[in-house]
């Protein structure tokens, strides 16, 4: 049948179904295919917080959202253009985010009485006209796969499990994407079970052909390839990227990598990844708690590893005392905090930017620690590497902030050529005449000698250290000197971080200032507004302590500064106290990152209203 082929720039498609329906697979396959095809992609999985919620319930819905397009794809999409809903609950839960006029691809078999009841529908939305504002593509996928696989050796249960593959095939057809990527993946996964492989391929193709053959469907879409820099690409989550960043840094530092960690949502995958790369000599200890996690990492750092610990807010809270020790010891250590919504246990699976205060200020005594933040999933690689670089060069613990959103979301990552990554090899002191607290005059980093080095036996610890010798000192003037050294060392890192990179006007009326995972939404909004001819500038901070040396000057060049944060204004307060400058806050504390339209609206509002 002939269909009208419509060329579009982007689409947001959400695969939603029951936890057992394989929606995560649909989503990852769709995004891999579109990325490999050459489009820009950004995704976000949305699991239920229950491990295995009862079938068909509202809180048991599992979804995966994919945003693809030919440019400016920095978020998983604010609103849904296409919803694949495998049952009633998944429709109920997601519909509010579908744009009016959007496409609903529904599995009719998921809207029988029992499912409707679980979804708390009074009547069947597929027949009660409540979906009139949408294009509904209503397929009895369950019946289809039964039909397709009737003759095979697959059990009815197995057959039913291929529903998602049908939906996937249909989606490929709808967006003119090839089946090859998924075929390859199925081959790999079921290579040893050809019957299952064949069955899946049959269903995949049937889904594809269903689109081709259906009389009801008059359109299909096409999105051009994006203009991507040449290179090798892969999809990656923030948590995996952070883990790889640490491994890369250790390799580049010629040091063994150590991770002392305790599982916690949404940071656990860092531990999973690092415990799974033993042929990279990654040594890990799943500790009895977060304190032992960081303490063991401190021990390994002292002994000469590139050492790290990964956690989320409640765990960072428990590491506070040991962080102070790391400051006093002046040893390299990377702490990755994948932030989640607090306070306390809060909303463990939701994201938030509210650990910044804790990261910067959360120590007793004067105990400065550099704090940096990743801006996107793949940037977690870059920033984990950078945290390691700073830690080794300045002999200091470094806190890397990512968040639940970055940790779980994926985007294509242009994999760096490892030979281009800088060398991080530290210089261990091995000569006689070692003074543990003698400092490099440029960096103020102290000299590092590790156990095993003959003749350099020395003692360090948490009591105040005497300048140069590192002996315990109760001398009050020495204490003040050391307090200043520690502060100056961290402050001095400003010399070593890139100056502010302002997008848009270099001075002017309105600067949007941000950090962390808000990047995607703001970048999208910024591009859109610029295309509309709006005058605004955007500065995204990746270094939060110390702040870039030129930030004060930059801020003064703008009349108004808007600072969106997923907290009550933590960075805003820091900027205010440092530069005595007025900041307009835009805060959202709803466990999700910004939507780009929220930023757009806010900026438009400010641009219209004019000066404050």
């Amino acid at each position: 049948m002939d269909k009208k082929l419509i060329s579009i720039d982007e689409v947001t498609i959400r695969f939603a179904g029951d936890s057992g329906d394989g929606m995560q697979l649909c989503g990852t396959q769709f995004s891999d295919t579109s990325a490999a095809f050459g489009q820009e992609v950004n995704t976000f999985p949305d699991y239920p917080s229950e491990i295995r919620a009862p079938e068909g319930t509202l809180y048991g819905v599992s979804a995966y959202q994919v945003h693809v397009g030919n440019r400016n794809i920095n978020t998983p999409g604010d609103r849904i253009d296409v919803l694949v809903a495998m049952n009633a609950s998944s429709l109920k839960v997601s519909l509010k985010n579908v744009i009016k006029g959007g496409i609903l691809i529904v599995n009719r078999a998921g809207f029988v009485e029992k499912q409707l009841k679980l979804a708390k529908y009074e009547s069947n939305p597929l027949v009660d006209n409540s979906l009139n504002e949408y294009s509904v593509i209503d397929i009895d996928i369950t019946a289809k796969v039964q039909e397709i696989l009737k003759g095979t050796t697959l059990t009815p249960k197995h057959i039913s499990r291929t529903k998602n593959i049908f939906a996937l095939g249909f989606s490929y057809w709808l967006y003119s994407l090839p089946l090859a990527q998924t075929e390859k993946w199925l081959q790999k996964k079921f290579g040893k079970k050809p019957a299952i492989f064949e069955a899946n391929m049959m269903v995949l193709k049937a889904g594809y052909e269903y689109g081709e053959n259906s009389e009801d469907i008059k359109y299909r879409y096409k999105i051009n390839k994006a203009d991507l820099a040449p290179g090798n690409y892969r999809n990656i989550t923030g948590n995996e990227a952070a883990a790889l960043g640490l491994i890369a840094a250790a390799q580049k530092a010629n040091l063994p990598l150590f991770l002392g960690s305790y599982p916690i949502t949404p940071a656990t995958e860092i531990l999973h990844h690092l415990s799974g790369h033993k042929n990279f000599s990654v040594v890990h200890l799943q500790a009895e708690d977060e304190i032992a996690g960081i303490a063991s990492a401190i021990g390994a750092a002292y002994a000469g590893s590139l050492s790290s610990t990964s956690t989320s807010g409640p765990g960072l809270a428990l590491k506070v005392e040991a962080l102070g020790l790391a400051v006093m010891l002046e040893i390299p250590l990377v702490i990755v905090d994948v932030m989640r919504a607090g306070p306390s246990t809060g909303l463990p699976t939701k994201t938030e930017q509210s650990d910044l205060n804790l990261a910067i200020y959360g120590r007793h005594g004067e105990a400065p620690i550099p704090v940096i933040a990743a801006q996107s999933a793949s940037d977690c690689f870059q920033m984990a590497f950078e945290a390691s670089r700073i830690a080794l060069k300045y002999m200091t613990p470094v806190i890397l902030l990512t968040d639940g959103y970055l940790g779980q979301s994926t985007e294509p990552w242009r994999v760096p050529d490892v030979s281009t990554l800088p060398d991080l090899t530290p210089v261990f002191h091995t000569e006689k005449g070692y003074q543990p607290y003698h400092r490099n005059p440029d960096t103020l980093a102290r000299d590092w000698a590790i156990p095993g080095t003959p003749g350099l036996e020395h003692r360090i610890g948490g009591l105040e250290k005497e300048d140069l010798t590192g002996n315990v000192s109760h001398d009050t003037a020495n204490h003040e000197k050391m307090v200043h050294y520690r502060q100056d060392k961290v402050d001095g890192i400003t010399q070593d971080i890139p100056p502010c990179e302002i997008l848009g006007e270099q001075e002017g009326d309105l600067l949007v200032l941000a950090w962390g995972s808000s990047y995607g939404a703001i970048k999208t909004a910024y591009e859109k507004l610029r295309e509309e001819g709006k005058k605004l500038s955007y500065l995204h901070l990746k270094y939060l302590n110390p702040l870039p040396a030129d930030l004060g000057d930059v801020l003064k060049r703008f009349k108004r500064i808007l600072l969106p944060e997923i907290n009550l204004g933590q960075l805003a307060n820091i900027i205010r106290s440092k530069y005595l400058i007025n900041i307009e806050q835009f805060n959202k504390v709803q466990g999700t990152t910004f939507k780009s339209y929220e930023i757009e609206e806010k900026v438009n509002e400010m641009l219209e209203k004019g000066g404050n």
Partner: protein
Amino acid sequence: MVTLVDNINDMSIATGTNYTAKDFKSDADVRWCAGCGGYSILAQAQRVLAGLGIPKERIVFVSGIGCSSRFPYYMDVYGFHSIHGRALPIASGIKVSRPELSVWVATGDGDCMSIGGNHFIHTLRRNIDINILMFNNEVYALTKGQASPTSKVGQITKTTQLGSIDNQFNPVGLALGSGGTFVARTFDADVKHMQYLYERAAAHKGTAFVEIYTNCVVFNDSTFSEFTDRETKKERTVLLEHGKPLIYGVNNDKGIKLDGFTPVAVSLDDGIHSVDDLLVHNEKDSTLAFILANMTYSDTLPRPYGVFQAIDKPRYEENIHLQIQDQIKIKGEGNLQKLLLGDEYWEIKN
């Protein structure tokens, strides 16, 4: 990959090890009170380490906070005076990342069993090869006299002015309950036995826990005197020696026999019992270790000391490095570029 760490390790092999105790004395003044049990514990450590044949630079002493935890300052090896209660996980990080180091922990009853209790039980569980010297003075000394988890019920301290009402830990029992593989007890006053236990601890593969009854002259003076005073020691203690019967008493005229599984004190002069009736110690028997541990706070039985248990179990640090070597054998040494590319990458061409 030959790392810098490896290079440093190589350097140390050249070092001579004809040490005397003096080689292990650091420059720092020892600042314990005159009469503190710590002095003897320290002196024996210096003596024993000199004889172990381990290059000084391979030895690391880690401690927490407390009078006892000042120990590393006085030893001329690598020393790490950390924070209260965390010596063991720090030591674990050192040992797991650098298994070739000889890692020791000096700690107190408060540091190890109060704030550090969780790390204690987990270190023993993992059986990481660390030698723990726990100065048990049954009090918090550095903070000037509060009850510790090993303080006696009824003990008067600044926080238990009407007598302590917390039941007392039995450190040996707790260590055994945690799966400890080497569990021993000695006294600050028993110089030879302390030396013997240090040597045993050093030789043991896995976590070695040595409880040392330590006199604090200021805040809990003489609390162990019945076990350490020349006059009473022989009657109030019994030495555990592998393969030997449990004999004690000034004239070696008493012994411990088992009545079923209950230890009872018997006289060897009563015409009824002979040495053959006595319980023979076996360090390899975990059940026996518990039975002996349970004698600890008995008023009628002598206090056992020596090695309660010395058994072999897998060690975390050894196994993780075995897994690493194994994986390298199977998969080849990690290729960073391949790792970053992952299984599912694609190329975008110009």
